[in-house]
């Protein structure tokens, strides 16, 4: 397969600018690039979701025009999206044959044949699944297998995997590697889209780095290093490792004891959480999404009521105080959803920067809001935090994700908090912005703030934290010093303690995830 000079322009953005890409059978080819570099656009062109404005696609030497995904499928191109496209109440077999069901007569689905087909391809490629299990009851890595099988069932020769490791723990990533190696050995071509450097090195045969819509380089993993890849991705030298000295923890600022809470569906989400957070340290909370991390953050920041347990700030009981009181007690909060919770997108940057302090001097005098102060304050913070915005009166929605996050950081740090709760502070940001956020978090720690870092990215937890707690099923199942932390061990804890087959633990995980 060859793509030549692919160009795709969106209004105001050149997403792809003359990209050449060549994939050969049996190859695992990685597309590496930052968010917004154009990798997904390129793949959507290949899968027929977008039409290129320039360039040509050749398959087995023949030029093809891929008008829509059906054409792509017919040509043997399959795609596994980052967000799975499965129907939860259907069985594995039903999902796999969906859209291309074997039939009895004209209208009836031949379910027996479907199951036989599924078992056959599952056998052939070494992807074990239970065809009769319902998708809603199986784990995420299983669901991913189902997606891959679905593509193979449609006869995919080229398989596109969009950020396949985003939802997996380290052990599952290794399983995925075995699967992709096996597929490649059977002559399939695999295109693997990611922004994670470590996996790239382990998993691919060839790496193409995309930067700002162009190919920045194409290398073999043996000939390069993660650092070299990172600088290719970003276009300058990047510090991969966060520079930080040893922590010097001080007094205990936040302590929670036996905290219990329910989630939005009134199901238990926190089942007795206890820990202490001290000044001058970063406590990382690791865990797979949906194990109570969001609820924990909400309880600590006053956005969710605890049904049991105690929460103390500097020895003072603050259980079930509201968000304003928690903020006034010195708890700043970088929320996990910056667009829904962290910002008012239709407010301008300046108005967003006073969201926590608009009612205080110098901004408020009586009920008057002194906009001259609001704007001068905004100009200072924009400068200090290097927010790239044309104006302090620009609506927050016009800013890039990284700059939106800088606005939130600026606002929360400006509250001079003692405790900082950072929930997935780098989600969806590019490398430059991630560096910035990490650097600022460590800086705050060194100033003696207590930082609670919740992240789904294990690497982030490992590189920033001084201590690491692992959450599973609403409990803290392990607490280790970052110095002694072992990725393997953390991975096992994230999966619920040890057993990694599709037994009870996976079902439980599936259930909490759906919650």
């Amino acid at each position, binding site marked *: 397969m060859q793509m030549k000079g692919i160009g795709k322009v969106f209004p105001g953005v050149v997403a792809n600018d003359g990209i050449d890409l060549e994939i050969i059978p049996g190859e695992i080819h990685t597309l590496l690039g930052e968010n917004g570099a154009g990798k997904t656009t390129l793949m959507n062109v290949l899968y027929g979701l977008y039409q290129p404005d320039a360039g040509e696609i050749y398959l087995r030497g023949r030029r093809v025009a891929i008008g829509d995904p059906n054409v792509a499928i017919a040509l043997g191109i399959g795609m596994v999206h980052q967000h799975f496209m499965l129907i939860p109440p259907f069985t594995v077999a039903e999902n796999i044959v969906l859209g291309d069901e074997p039939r009895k007569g004209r209208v009836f689905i031949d379910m027996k044949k479907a199951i036989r087909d599924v078992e056959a391809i599952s056998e052939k490629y070494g992807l074990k699944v239970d065809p009769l299990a319902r998708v809603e009851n199986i784990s995420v890595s299983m669901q991913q297998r189902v997606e891959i099988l679905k593509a193979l069932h449609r006869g995919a020769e080229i398989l596109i995997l969009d950020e396949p490791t985003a939802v997996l723990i380290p052990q599952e990533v290794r399983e995925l590697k075995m699967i992709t190696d096996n597929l490649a050995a059977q002559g399939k071509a695999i295109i693997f889209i990611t922004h994670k450097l470590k996996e790239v090195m382990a998993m691919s045969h060839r790496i193409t780095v995309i930067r700002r819509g162009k190919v920045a380089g194409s290398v073999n993993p043996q000939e390069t290093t993660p650092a070299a890849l990172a600088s290719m991705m970003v276009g300058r030298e990047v510090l991969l490792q966060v520079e930080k000295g040893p922590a010097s923890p001080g007094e205990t600022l936040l302590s929670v004891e036996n905290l219990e809470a329910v989630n939005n569906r009134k199901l238990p989400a926190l089942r007795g959480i206890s820990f202490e957070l001290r000044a001058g340290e970063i406590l990382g909370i690791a865990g797979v999404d949906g194990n109570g991390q969001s609820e924990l953050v909400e309880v600590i920041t006053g956005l969710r009521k605890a049904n049991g347990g105690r929460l103390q700030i500097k020895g003072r009981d603050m259980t079930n105080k509201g968000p304003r009181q928690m903020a006034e007690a010195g708890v700043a909060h970088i929320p996990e959803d910056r667009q829904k919770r962290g910002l008012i997108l239709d407010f301008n940057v300046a108005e967003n920067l006073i969201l926590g302090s608009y009612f205080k001097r110098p901004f408020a005098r009586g009920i008057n809001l002194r906009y001259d102060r609001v704007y001068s304050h905004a100009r200072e913070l924009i400068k200090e935090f290097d927010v790239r915005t044309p104006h302090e009166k620009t609506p927050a929605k*016009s800013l890039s994700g990284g700059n939106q996050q800088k606005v939130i950081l600026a606002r929360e740090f400006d509250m001079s908090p003692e405790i900082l709760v950072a929930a997935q502070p780098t989600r969806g940001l590019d490398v430059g912005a991630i560096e910035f956020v990490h650097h600022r978090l460590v800086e705050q720690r060194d100033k003696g703030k207590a930082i609670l870092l919740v992240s789904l990215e294990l690497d982030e937890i490992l590189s920033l934290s001084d201590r690491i707690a692992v959450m599973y099923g609403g409990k803290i199942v392990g607490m280790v010093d970052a110095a002694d932390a072992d990725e393997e061990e953390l991975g096992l804890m994230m999966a619920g303690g040890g057993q990694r087959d599709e037994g009870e633990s996976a079902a439980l995980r599936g259930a909490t995830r759906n919650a």
Partner: protein
Amino acid sequence: MREKKEVVPAPAGAATPVASTPWRGLRLGDFERVWIAVLAVLIGMVVGALFVLWSGKNPLVAYQALWQASFANWSSFGEMLVNVTPLIFTGLAIAFAFRAGLFNIGAEGQFIVGQIAAAWAGYAFTGLPAVLHVTLALLAGFLAGALWAAVPAYLKAKRGVHEVINTIMMNYIALYFTHFLVNGVLRGHPYLPVTKEILPTARLFRFLPNALIAESSRVNAGFLVALACALLVYYLMWKTTVGYEIRAVGLNPTAAEYRGISVAKNLILAMLVSGGLAGIGGAVQVLGIQYKFYDIFSFTNYGFDGIAVALIGNNHPAGVLGGALLFGFLARGGTAMQSIAEVPKEIINIIQAAIIIFVAADMMIRRLFRLKRKGVTDGALE
């Protein structure tokens, strides 16, 4: 048709002034919004003209009659303002609630209870100086309107019941409750369903009373009260912490809650102020025009037209003034068109409807406009 220009003034400086950033999606700048309103009016007039032609009449004659009805002399201008004034109040009321994310369909009912409360305060209190009496009667209107809005406000904020349903139902309660009052305890006439007339001290000053000059009109200080309210709404919404909270809640309640802004409190507050504004509108109608409360057999429609006024005005006080002026002008001109140009009055409804459709479908207008300017390249934009 050239003369229609001045009908729509510029809604200056909405929520986020400067800075539309061209590289990140299209943003409707304020300037563009004014353009859309002007274009919508022009298109509405053209559509209306087509219907006039269809009915075999001359559109120019019709539109001349329309214009003359409001701008022939001071008297007609004053009478137009009489039409405009209540629409400013109801428009402001709906715009205010809308900024908090609430759709107040109940301005009609709030207007009605404001009327009867002001009428009662206008005759029940005696021996007050005029300034005090007028203020008191306006306050009575405000409180009645706010009280009427309080029910849906409470249900929305504390029980999560959608305000549209409840405000609509409160309209009917207002209609029949005032009917009950004016035929009962508040009846001020032996056989007519009206209240007593308000005292002279409660009347709003009329600028063109018959006695002084030849041209007369009922236009009164109520128009100034309306302008003052528009200014006040602007100040409250964009210059105070109160407005900051309300707008924050309206735009993103999740984010507002996250930084400790009470969603429930602000929803209730916004709804009360909204109801109060509509209530003052009703009070002004009684204190400046009617001098008594007449039983209302069907809705006044000021509350409903206020929805369109707020929509055209983009929920901004300046825009509301423009929208009220336009609707007041059209309503007044409709009758004139019928009598002078013998064009059915309903043509005016068509024009109004066309304008609303085009403003509401601003996307559509933008699309049309862009197509004209840039050719067809942007067709696949969204």
